[in-house]
């Protein structure tokens, strides 16, 4: 339906524009602040005309916080988390939708409930597990008296230990499980016609073959959408990387921004901090721009 309502159109655009300004203004201010020198950035009010020191500030921020390796770390972590989530949630949803086994709905609801348990809630036990992945097994052995038995028989003291602190696996693995992703895939798999499944069975394709040849190609858009969201989410993680990386070689870009924020008593170098922020913001922006076509398609229903 096409309506001609010039006045309504005008107001609609006005509201849209106001919303746009509201969203974009902070970024513009960050960019302007990043272009000033130490004196101008601390003027009150700060001049909203861009200064001339933009590239100098960017370079300073880059070297001060050593952003090169940090960005690489962030990228590895965010990519690992996004890829892991896409794979794990596809497999989980496949199992829940296509197989009938006892406890299936229970498992689904357990996964669903974890939506309500963000990382922050379970961060202490998660830290304990990552510090020593085998800890739970050690506890089982101790409790059942098995480690005592083994020590008596072989003289070897059982001391299971596998620490993942300060490692990429430690950064990535605890973040990989995802209820949102499983749910998204489940909803998509439910829209795939049963006849397609049956046709694949008649063609002789087993379950995994069907998954790889039919389901995954069909859920391309889903994967792109989920991957993008999860990449952004992982890139912006702060608490978890902060907790488990004590060693500079595994530090993330987002947590290292803190180094650029002026300390009490230090010079108020906000222009450098803003420049660093701009750099760290850039990779997710690029990912969104590149992926947005599939991203949108994946979130709005199926193509039919």
């Amino acid at each position: 339906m096409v309506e001609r309502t010039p006045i309504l159109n005008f107001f609609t655009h006005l509201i849209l524009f106001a919303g746009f300004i509201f969203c974009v203004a902070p970024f513009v201010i960050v960019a302007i602040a990043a272009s000033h020198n130490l004196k101008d950035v601390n003027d009150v009010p700060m001049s909203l005309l861009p200064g001339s020191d933009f590239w100098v500030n960017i370079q300073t921020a880059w070297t001060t916080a050593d952003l090169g390796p940090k960005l690489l770390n962030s990228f590895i972590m965010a990519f690992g988390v996004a890829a892991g989530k896409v794979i794990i949630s596809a497999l989980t949803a496949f199992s829940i939708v296509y197989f009938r086994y006892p406890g299936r709905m229970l498992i689904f609801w357990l996964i669903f409930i974890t939506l309500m348990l963000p990382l922050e809630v379970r961060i202490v036990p998660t830290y304990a597990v990552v510090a020593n992945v085998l800890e739970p097994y050690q506890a089982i052995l101790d409790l059942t008296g098995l480690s005592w038995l083994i020590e008596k028989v072989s003289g070897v003291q059982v001391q299971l230990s596998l620490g993942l602190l300060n490692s990429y696996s430690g950064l990535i693995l605890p973040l990989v499980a995802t209820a949102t992703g499983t749910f998204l895939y489940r909803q998509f798999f439910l829209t795939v016609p049963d006849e397609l499944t049956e046709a694949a069975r008649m063609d002789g394709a087993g379950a995994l073959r069907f998954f790889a040849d039919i389901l995954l190609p069909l859920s391309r858009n889903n994967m792109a959408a989920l991957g993008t969201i999860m990449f952004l989410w992982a890139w912006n993680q702060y608490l978890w990387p902060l907790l488990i990386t004590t060693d500079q070689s595994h530090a993330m870009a987002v947590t290292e921004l803190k180094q650029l924020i002026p300390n009490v008593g230090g010079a108020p170098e906000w222009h450098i901090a803003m420049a660093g922020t701009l750099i760290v913001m850039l990779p997710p922006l690029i990912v969104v721009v590149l992926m947005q076509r599939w991203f949108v398609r994946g979130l709005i229903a199926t193509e039919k």
Partner: protein
Amino acid sequence: MASITIRGVKKNYAKTQVVHGVDLDFASGEFVVILGPSGCGKSTLLRMIAGLEEISDGTIAIDGMVVNKLEPRERGCAMVFQNYALYPHMSVAQNIGYSLKVAGVPAAERTQRIQAVARVLELEHLLDRKPMALSGGQRQRVAMGRAMIREPKVFLFDEPLSNLDAKLRVQMRSEIRKLHRRLNATSVFVTHDQVEAMTLADRLVVMNGGRVEQVGTPAEVYSRPASRFVATFVGAPAMNMLEGEVTLDGISLLGGSRKLNVSRTGLAVGAKVAVGIRPESVRMVAPGTPGALAATVDLIEELGAGRVIYVDLDGAPFSVVTSETVHPEPGSTIGLQFAEADLHFFSSETGGRLDVFKVSVPEPALQG
């Protein structure tokens, strides 16, 4: 080529039974059509043959080997689905060749066989297209190609033509028939469309309510329906049914004082029967003709080659198909005449066919 033997097959969903013990034998190379209204269990039966549904009780054997526990791929069946079920992300060639790919056939041989199938189905120029870019008829042909390429022992068709428009349906019908003549594989075709069933079948299986009502050639089923259900389901317009009671000298029709004058033996006087007569077997005569049954015209449907005249016979609906050029006005009275040989009798209680009547008296069979 393979024969199919079905013995005492039942299907239960939770507590409800939808197929109540079916026994059937399909000969090798035969084209069998299973016909029935929706919900009669015909698709379930087909899917049990395919291996897509578990068999609750009884056995299905293909070529003498019981296949109850076999996966669909091990049964040597190929199936054409109602909605084609083409893989939307694969090209036509990939769709057709997918089963070969799964089976690990080398790429060169695969291409060759895809080409061969495409040639038969006239799909050669479409091999690179995606299903989305095909018309309904073309998709249907791709679905058949996908079934053909495996050179299956048994072809299964699950209402494959019901999504096509009328003209295409007629065309695909004859193509399926031609294809069968060429490949000569045992084919089981499920449909609710009786014209499709009549034209395609070597043998027709009519199902109703999870039971087989009749098995026979289309001509047999049409001319000697085994039950009242088959009589009214096969043939369009449906066979006319007149309820009546056996008397000493014929059958008196309910709802009126009319009487059918038939010679009959062996039927108890007082038994309730339904008398069937096909609309094509009724002749229209001038009202008042001796021996003709008077009826009021309700509605006339023009078919081009002929017309269907719906009349009212003492409150019972009745139809006549005629190719004569007579044009009775709605509301006018006409006379109906038919031969005793064309009458079918069914028990009012069981619906089964009663074959105790011997035709001995020539027409007119009716007295108004």
